[in-house]
């Protein structure tokens, strides 16, 4: 699937991650990551974002991620929510 609409999820609070996804003009998945622990965990955060997108069959998207020390489950959750929001046509009620 290709993301055609921008969406975001998460917060900038401690232990959370703010995810913004948007259409990518280039092919594939592009991740821009900012994190206080990028040296220690940058690779792992990117891997979780990538795995989640691949599991959701997203092939073309740009991701901007601002991490505040989120654990894997929180990263996965925020990416899932952002993708679901980008793909949804209507609001929940």
């Amino acid at each position, binding site marked *: 699937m290709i993301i055609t609409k921008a969406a975001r999820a998460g917060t900038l609070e401690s232990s959370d991650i703010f995810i913004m996804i948007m259409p990518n003009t280039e092919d594939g998945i592009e991740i821009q990551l900012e994190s206080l622990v990028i040296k220690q965990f940058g690779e792992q955060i990117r891997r979780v974002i990538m795995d989640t997108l691949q599991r959701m069959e997203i092939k073309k998207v740009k991701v901007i991620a601002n991490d505040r020390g989120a654990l894997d489950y929180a990263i996965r959750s925020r990416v899932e929510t952002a993708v679901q929001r980008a793909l949804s046509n209507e609001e*929940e*009620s």
Partner: protein
Amino acid sequence: MMPRLRRSMLFIPGNSPNMIQNAGVLNADSIILDVEDAVSIGEKDSARNLIKNALMQVNFYGCEVVVRVNSPSTAFGMKDLRVLSQSKPDAFMIPMATEKDIIKADQIITEAEKKAEIKEGHIKLIPIAETAYAVENIAAIIKSSNRIEAVLLGAEDLTADLEITRTKDGDEINYARNKISNICKAYRIQAIDTPYADVNDYDGLLKDTIKGKNLGMSGKAAINPRQVDIIHTAYSPSPEEIEYAQNVIKAMEDAKAEGKGVFSYEGKMIDAPIILRAETVIKKAKLAGIL
């Protein structure tokens, strides 16, 4: 079988990773991950995903994990139950409970359990009695599903429904506390008391907790981790109660060995209700890790 110990049930906002991942170390018997009142309309989807993944990956150190979903009468509630059942929480808490909502929740959970190959009946239900209707019909609500293990009294919404003022003394909810605790005892399930709203008033919390306990409640909800230990103090057997119970049991065993049908302890005749009370104290002390 002695039910799970639920002296304290601590509410945790369902969209906060920081609070969710630390919830298991706060010493509460149960934690309630809240996707209802603690989460704004625009963040329900986010909280649902966060709780789903947390249930699968976060270590809650053996603490019971309950999810308060949105009302099954809403699209949010239906989706909460469908999505979150697959992650196997210990129980769902159902707000504004009615018989119809409980039946609907039970059906959705049963389908989800089958789909996820979870043992049927694994996920329990805890209705919240927070309307005049629910208090008056709590027996029918309890009978709506075999999954129900406890009922939570929700005094804030109840007093709003009754159009009366909620006070610290709580006299206005005496009737509801009596009714809920009595009916829960009749059906051998637990009655969980309403939370105490002033998180800085520890004396008031202790007084309110003891009041609920004396009316037959089996535990109390908490809205702040600082309330947990005070609630445990009130709902755990005291050293004196444990010692007395142990002595009663020992006296009973001695009497049996001597072939006596009736016996006394400290000058008081001991009969079946006193033995039952002593046995309950010992079981509770064991569950609480005091014995």
